[in-house]
């Protein structure tokens, strides 16, 4: 279907984008890579009279190394993030998500901001970002604020963003020593398959190989990316043996609130969460090395 009549406003600055949002709200959407917005408009998931195109805001684009970590501009494409030389070392776990999602063409258009703030339950970046303790920098003409990534998305396609607020950047804190993260996802094809379930894990170990910190987050098994708080409590201070991993997997399965749909039943998804949790924990551990 064709997109109904719509006006596209190209914002040159964040402030301008925020002002445009404020002016046309609620008959307006942000347009980043457009890979979700265009499909939604064509299939009439929603219809709006105005789009605010962010493409012209240069400042929103790119990955930079900051004192306290990595700053990923909201307009950075998935491909740019995937190919960034800064995504190295412990940060490289991000590639578990960026290299496996969607298609090359979609990744060339899709932005980090769209993936995160789009708040689609099966989006691949939020879980690994949550596991890596990332924060979201939100910006409006009234100023900026920072929220933890796990607090950004509250439900399917709903966030804590205010009407004239947008996501400016995602900050991934510099990982501590002896840190490893991984994202294990399950799709029904080898490529271009939406996640049926995904589990992201980030671990930091003490010198004695006990767990210093552990964060687990789930994809596609809840209305929003699911941060499994209990897993942190369970694992900290322990050695990651088989029993600990199995218990963490059980916690993750319990935390999941999957639905049944075409891609899999709730029971199957829950089972996948268990398997993927064990696999992600193993992969993260392996990345820490000895």
């Amino acid at each position, binding site marked *: 279907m064709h997109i*109904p009549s*719509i006006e596209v406003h*190209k914002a040159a600055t964040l402030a301008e984008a925020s002002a445009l949002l404020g002016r046309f709200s609620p008959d307006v959407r942000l347009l980043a890579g457009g890979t979700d917005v265009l499909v939604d408009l064509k299939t009439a998931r929603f219809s709006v009279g105005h789009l605010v*195109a962010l493409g012209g805001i240069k400042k929103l684009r790119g990955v930079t190394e900051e004192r306290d970590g990595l700053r990923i501009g909201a307009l950075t494409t998935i491909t740019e993030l995937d190919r960034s030389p800064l995504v190295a070392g412990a940060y490289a776990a991000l590639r578990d998500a960026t290299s496996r999602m969607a298609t*090359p063409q979609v990744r*060339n258009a899709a932005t980090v901001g769209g993936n995160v703030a789009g708040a689609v339950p099966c989006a691949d970046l939020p879980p690994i970002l949550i596991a890596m303790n990332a924060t979201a920098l939100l910006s409006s003409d009234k100023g900026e604020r920072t929220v933890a990534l796990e607090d950004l998305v509250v439900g399917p396609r709903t966030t804590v963003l205010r009407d004239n607020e947008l996501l400016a950047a995602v900050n991934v804190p510099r990982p501590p020593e002896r840190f490893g993260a991984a994202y294990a996802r399950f799709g*029904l*094809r080898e490529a271009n398959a939406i996640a049926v379930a995904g589990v992201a894990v980030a671990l930091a170990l003490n010198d004695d190989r006990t767990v210093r910190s552990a964060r687990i987050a789930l994809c596609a098994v809840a209305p929003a990316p699911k941060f499994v708080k209990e897993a942190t409590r369970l694992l900290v201070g322990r050695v990651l043996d088989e029993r600990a991993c199995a218990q963490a997997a059980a916690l993750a399965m319990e935390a999941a609130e999957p639905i049944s749909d*075409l891609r899999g039943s709730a029971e*199957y998804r829950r089972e996948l969460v268990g398997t993927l949790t064990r696999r992600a924990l193993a992969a993260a551990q392996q990345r820490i090395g000895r």
Partner: protein
Amino acid sequence: MFTARTFTINGQQYDVAIEDGETLLDVLRDRLHLTGTKKGCDSGDCGACTVLIDGEPLNSCLLLASTVEDRSITTIEGLARNGELTPLQKSFVAEGGLQCGYCTPGMVLSATALLERNPDPSADEIKDALAGNLCRCTGYTGILRAVERCKNYLEGGQCAKPRGVEPSGVGASIPRIDAADKVTGRALYTADISLPYMVHGKILGSPIAHGLVKRIDVSKAKALPGVLAVLTGADVTDTKHGVSPARYDEDVLAKDKVRHIGDPVAAVAAVDEKTAERALKLIEVEYERLPVLTDAMEAIKEGAPLIHEKYKSNICTTVDFNFGDVETAFKESHYVREETFVGNNVFQSPLEPHASISTWSHDGNLTLYTSTQVPPYVQYMMAHLLHIPLGKIRVIRPAVGGGFGTKAATTPLDICSALLSRACGRPVKMVYSREEMFQYGRGRHKQHMKIKLGVDREGKIKAVKSEVHLDGGAYTSFGVATAYYAGSMIPTLYKIPNYRYDGYRVMTNKPACGAMRGHGVPQPRFAFECLLSMAADDLGIDPIEIRRRNAMTPNTMTVNDLDIGSCEFSATLDAVAGKSAWKDKYGKLPKGKGIGIGCGGFVSGAGYCIYRGQVQLSHEKGREPFQKKSIFPHANAVVRVTEDGEAAVLMIGAAEIGQGSDTVLVQMCAQSLGIPASRMRMQSADSEISPLDLGAYSSRVTFMAGHAVSRAGAMVLEKMKPYAAALLGCAASEVEARDGTVFVRGDASRSVLWAEVARKCFNADGPLVGTGWYKPPEGLGGDYKGATVGTSPAYSFGSSVCEVSVDLETGKVKIDKFTDYHDCGTPINPQGVHGQVEGAIVMGAGETVMEGVAFGDDGQLLNPNLHGYLIMTIKDAPEIFSGVVDSYEPRGPFGAKEIGEGSTLPVLGAVAHAIANATGVWIKDLPITPEKIVNAIRQKKAADAARRERRDEPVTAK
């Protein structure tokens, strides 16, 4: 609101006024007529619309044109410079990187971007880069090869220049004659064509799956500016249409009832598609809902509502085959096993959506451009519905982007575009969206199969009995033939002395099913192959060995009176066993790894055509009593040599739909003319130019049209012989021709140029023309009801070995490898044969593990798109070895049989067997999804544990 915008496309500036909401894809195609960029899904799933933006591939369907003004855009048209193909394009042409060509522009652009970044990519890097470009034809094998070997086509590379005169006749793997047009985006598909003053049509489909139409109000739609015509059931003929003459049950537009989601209710023509879409929303329809039937086994229950009054118990066809005495044979069998299998409603999903353009002349002649496999059947059906003679209808079949059976009948687009065009006096174009394609359907029947096998001690088949309910959707379409095919082809592969088949074609409130690749046979074949492998395992006989013991032999009449001629089935079994190292693997692989065998074969063209009478309007004359012969030739060709003798134009209405028929027909005709294929031109698209060929279905074209074109070529040569004899000083009977030279048999030094002889002919006798035709042999088939279905002049055979890895925790299957050997007769173009096999393997494997249209209880389609309905990507495709065994079919042209559909048949069973071999569990309902595997493994574990416990009990008791 329109804004003037400037785009930089292929280095050239374009100024154009567009609306803000237009996608780059629509601007390229509709406003700038750069139609090399294709629309396959309009939602980012297929990659057909790929363009390069600043050198990187993006989906132009997901880009608003208004946001890319400052970017550099490259489309497929921009790659070749000054008519010279890029090395990659040359590689695609030479390596068989394309078939229908619809995915090709996007594929070539994605690969171009990759090679720009990484000139020497690994196979995995190529697969990663092409993972966003779906191809339904090639199985990706030729594509991968083309990209890998691109280096060879660089300036100075080993294949950069053609090496002298290459063989181009029968048996040569010449590139497809349309390849260059397809890699450059020049090939025109129906939706690419735009006629002056053309407008656009859309159909309003029913939003409910079953109901009565109580009231339709189109006044608001008619009042919308830009709307030119609106039609409803009240405005159109009462004549019904369909495929099987005895079961025409479809209304052009709903008269009183709708029977599935998308059932056509009204049609609109407007100045552009967007306006037509808006108009549809303004049509008010009041429905009275009726109970919805989505399950065939529910639909046949007593008391179920009838979808058509005339089909009692919702069954439109009942088949009853009974040969020999199965019950006695089962009693006498050493081993009997019965199993129930369920197939899936697979949709062909060709990359190119169905499309039609109609335009009428002032004297009432219709020209219809349509994306079809069967131009003459469309012509026939249009005449039937429009009540005009067939001769007043011209059907043009532009390039077709794949069909696989969903384009084997007249579509609502054909009909409505003609009616709307007549109503508004302008050419009308209509194109299905991806969702509408699914709603139109004509995919594979979902078959519920109960099948029983009896064998003796050695594993030799004593009897087979099957009962099949075919869930066919809301209309009969091909269903009568499907129900017969599901039964008639089982006895062609193995010798079955006693055979019983009961088939029921059931109506449900879903889009009608039709004739998908392998028509009716793949699911019963899957069931039978699984059952045979189960039996082999139970009896401790190797699964390939049990097949050898039962294999069909040449020159055999099957129990159901099908006349098998050449048959090298056993040779295919030996070949796959050897090539796949079967003996070293079966039963010896580690857990999670599996290997399996499947076999199959098909007809080389149906022995009888769907309309058995003359080529005429069905209502002009009553149906004639059936005679066991074809009334008119099924394939007809004319070849005309140009006046200078340098080229020959072959005219035959055989439908090139991507399978490569134009190329093999040219090869066969060139061979019999005695000139290189490069001197042939093909005219197969236009019914006004090319004589009737029934079309691309039942794997008939190479065989039947092949005969017609070789006979036409031979006639030309016969006409040339006296003139050549005079020039060469020999007898006419001593004249031979090859590769453009005419010479004396046995003394090639006495020769004259072919063109010179042809000129002599023209000077003396006028146009140098040959004609040829083909009728299947008379008397095919037995004398029982339904005996015609499955008859054919020749049968193909094949065996496939599949190897898989299964993740036993998640159930995920990776199809690693396929080894396939076919008896397709003598291949005319081996590359074309392998291309069909590779495509069929990937399509068939996808069908087995991931495909299936899903429905809600209310009949809504749950996955009418290419992100819900998954087909394999290049990363899912297995490594494939395709081989052919030596074979010659005396009844075929140059010994050829078929490969297009037969290649699908072994695949499903081979995959299922390999999965069973890897997991220890047989999954008997398709598709074999990871979830089903995990559940079956769990159940088996529980059952095993229970059994162990039971076995333990008595021990402890003692």
